[in-house]
């Protein structure tokens, strides 16, 4: 199963658990390397005036590295800039795929860019392996069709094992907020609603790297 680099954004949220559990608050920036493993899924959901649709992200995933500085209530990130290929969304309908790519201006902007800035968490939850699912919130710069907006994404994380954790959640986005005209069909009689929601349900593998 192919995964999207967009997943990496959410992996960061789980990395916080790993980092905070292993290092004292205020420690120097640390490099981490991570990947997405099965079972994982990222998809977007939307509606039109006649039906609902789901588009799965099938972008290729590569190992990523970033630097994270863990604080008491927040962690800050550097070099955490990710790109998700616009053409890799599969709506299982060729026309819908084409309309989505056209709306996202795939020719001019082949990537949706996400820059992770910081993430907020409760240390007591992260330091407790028995905590089960805990809440995390990430502040990101989201760039679609060249328009950048600051977003706060809420998610839930859970440690599965020593180096694996699960992430799940969703984030609703208004297309018009990014200058995107929602697609229409049948001479404007079928309209895609402005609000689309990204859903993620990930399993993340974290491999620590020594920081020099």
């Amino acid at each position, binding site marked *: 199963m192919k995964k999207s680099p967009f997943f990496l954004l959410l992996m960061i949220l789980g990395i916080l658990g790993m980092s905070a559990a292993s290092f004292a608050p205020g420690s120097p920036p640390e490099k981490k390397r991570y990947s997405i493993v099965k079972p994982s899924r990222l998809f977007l959901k939307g509606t039109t*005036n*006649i*039906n609902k649709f789901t588009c799965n992200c099938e972008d290729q995933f590569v190992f990523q590295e970033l630097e994270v500085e863990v604080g008491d209530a927040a962690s800050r990130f550097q070099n955490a800039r990710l790109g998700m290929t616009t053409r890799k969304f599969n709506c299982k*309908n*060729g*026309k*819908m795929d*084409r309309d989505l790519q056209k709306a996202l201006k795939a020719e001019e902007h082949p990537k949706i860019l996400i820059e992770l800035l910081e993430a907020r968490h409760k240390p007591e939850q992260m330091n407790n392996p028995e905590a089960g699912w805990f809440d995390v919130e990430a502040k990101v710069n989201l760039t679609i069709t060249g328009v950048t907006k600051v977003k706060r994404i809420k998610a839930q994380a859970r440690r599965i094992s020593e180096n694996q954790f699960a992430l799940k959640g969703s984030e609703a986005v208004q297309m018009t907020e990014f200058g995107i005209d929602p697609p229409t*069909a*049948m*001479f404007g*009689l*079928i309209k895609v609603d402005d609000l689309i929601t990204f859903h993620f349900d990930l399993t993340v593998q974290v491999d620590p790297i020594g920081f020099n």
Partner: protein
Amino acid sequence: MQKFLLKGIVAGVILLVLSYAALWILVNFFPDMAEQYYNPVFDMEGDKTYLYFLHPFILSFALAWFWRRFKSLFHGTFWWRGIEMGLVYGLIATLPSMWITFSSLAVSFTLVLTWLLYGVFQGVIVGIVYAKISP
């Protein structure tokens, strides 16, 4: 010739309005069927859009010639003459073309049936118009 053109345009405009109304009814009252049009087979946007809106006039002028040539075969009130012409058009033109469409394209039977019924409906409307303005 001028009368011929005028009749064709009148009937074409009526069909054009009805064609958009039919799409509106389809989307608002039969959404499951409208969803079938969201398929790569149907290219209803972009450069071909004007062709779709020209089709009522293609039909109206074709049936204008047909009416002028064969109107003597249709008898009764203008309503019945129009209905009969629509049924004839459906039988000799729409039914065979829908038959081969269903046999060769990946479209549902329901969709093809709607096209058949709509084709007959178009023929009836044009027939009534011509039976009224050119008896």
